[in-house]
């Protein structure tokens, strides 16, 4: 029964990881680089919410309405004024720029907030749970986070496959040259991808801050988990990313069940095993770019 519990908790956690991953995978699909500051933006969102609650009060839940659109706008301008330039300056440039951005965000947050743990406390929702059996309890917040994450990823997949902006995004990821020759403005598409990436990672950042805690430097960890989930699931579709997040979550909680200190390690091992035996990822679509 403890194993069932570990697996279920892992799945709930994995939904959150998937939310961190979709943006990373979307930006990689469209621009072919890994945004090394991706995790830091989740932490930045968490601090933004933290400050908003401190000043305006109320439950942290309302901050979604302010922080997520703000993140999208930041993503748009980040792409327009910084990343687009870096992309024009060679393959390594975007990596260096986002690495620099990551360092900058982390030290700025450290300056502003110190190195301690903070959290977005939701009151009773933080500890209430549903009893399923005598040994299996589902935290309400955990379930809500999971449901929202899956709904958001499904919605995003629907947006990509059914709407014209989504098609243009997929077309650009598939063949940027042909997209430009079809009249698609590549700058517009890249800005859209980054806006979505930052909005989704902001949602993830707020949820993580509500479920556990955050520090100015915890973004680096978030980035690693997001990256591992993307690789495990395989680039090609957001379903792959969701699956990758779930597998990573389960690996971590089952690993912790075996030895409480080894949860994270178990996740890394699964990631390495996938890299070694199925580098294209578990659910890599046959010929899909996104």
């Amino acid at each position, binding site marked *: 029964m403890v194993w069932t519990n570990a697996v279920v908790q892992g799945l709930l956690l994995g939904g959150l990881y998937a939310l961190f991953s979709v943006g990373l995978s979307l930006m990689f699909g469209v621009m072919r680089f890994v945004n090394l500051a991706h995790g830091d933006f989740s932490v930045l969102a968490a601090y933004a919410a933290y400050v908003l609650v401190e000043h305006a009060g109320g439950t942290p839940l309302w901050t979604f309405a302010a922080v997520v659109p703000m993140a999208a706008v930041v993503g748009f301008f980040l792409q327009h004024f910084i990343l687009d330039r870096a992309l024009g300056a060679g393959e390594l440039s975007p990596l260096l720029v986002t690495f620099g951005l990551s360092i900058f965000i982390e030290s700025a947050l450290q300056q502003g907030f110190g190195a301690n743990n903070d959290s977005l406390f939701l009151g009773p929702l933080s500890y209430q749970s549903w009893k399923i059996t005598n040994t299996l309890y589902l935290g309400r917040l955990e379930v809500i986070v999971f449901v929202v994450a899956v709904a958001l990823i499904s919605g995003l997949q629907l947006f990509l496959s059914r709407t*014209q902006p989504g*098609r*243009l995004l*997929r*077309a650009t990821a*598939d*063949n940027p*040259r*042909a*997209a*430009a*020759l*079809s*009249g*698609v*403005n*590549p700058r517009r598409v890249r800005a859209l991808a980054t806006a979505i990436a930052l909005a989704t990672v902001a949602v993830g950042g707020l949820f993580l801050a509500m479920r556990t805690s955050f520090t100015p430097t915890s973004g680096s960890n978030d980035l690693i988990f997001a990256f591992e989930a993307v690789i495990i699931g395989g680039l090609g579709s957001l379903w792959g990313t969701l699956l990758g997040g779930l597998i990573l979550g389960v690996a971590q909680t089952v690993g912790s069940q075996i030895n409480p200190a080894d949860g994270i390690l178990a996740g890394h091992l699964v990631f390495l095993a996938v890299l070694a035996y199925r580098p294209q990822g578990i659910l890599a*679509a046959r*010929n*899909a*770019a*996104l």
Partner: protein
Amino acid sequence: MTMLRLEGVTANYGHLRALEEMSLSLDEGDILAVLGANGAGKSTLLSLISGELKPSNGRIFFNDVDITHLDPFQRVRKGIALVPEGRHLFASLTVEENLLVGGSTRRQGSWSLDAVYDLFPFIKERRRSRGGQLSGGEQQAVAIGRALMSNPALLLLDEVSLGLAPVIVRDLYGGLRAVANEGTTLLLVEQDLTEALGVASQVLCLLDGRVVLTGSPDSLSQSQMITAYFGDGESAHKSERS
């Protein structure tokens, strides 16, 4: 009325000069066939017109507007569409999605999904297949259809017949004739002379990055064209150039 005008356009790839002082003028409704051997500079010419390659010298005008510095997507919006060599479909998108992406500019005109399916009926039944699953001929038809969806005034085509069976090439050229009859100006690059000369109203031969012959297909003799195509005995085997 002159639709497209190139004035002394020179193009380089690094140190390699691919096109030299090229001038060209194309009227609305013209069908220009550009002929030439491998490496003559045909695709380079199309890249210059589509905006993928910027000239190191010279200017390009479209409907009397200087478009020399416009990006490819901006030129599509002005009415210039390229069907690239190798077709370049979106392999992971369906046929219909490929066409819809082509229509994203929403330029005014008569092309629509149905119009493209009427032009090439054999891709209609494959509209839910992914670009990567199509045969070469089907891919080429979709690539042409995708370009048409932007309602171009000038359609550029790079080696439409390359690697395709003669029956299919005939179907594709049948479609292109219909497109030309609607008034669209065509610029086709070909190595297959028969089909190209069958539709062309003008011919231009490139050799080693220079125009060596122009005229109407009827006014040019076979031997003139063969010389223009291969050069004189000297340069016939000179595919490596400094």
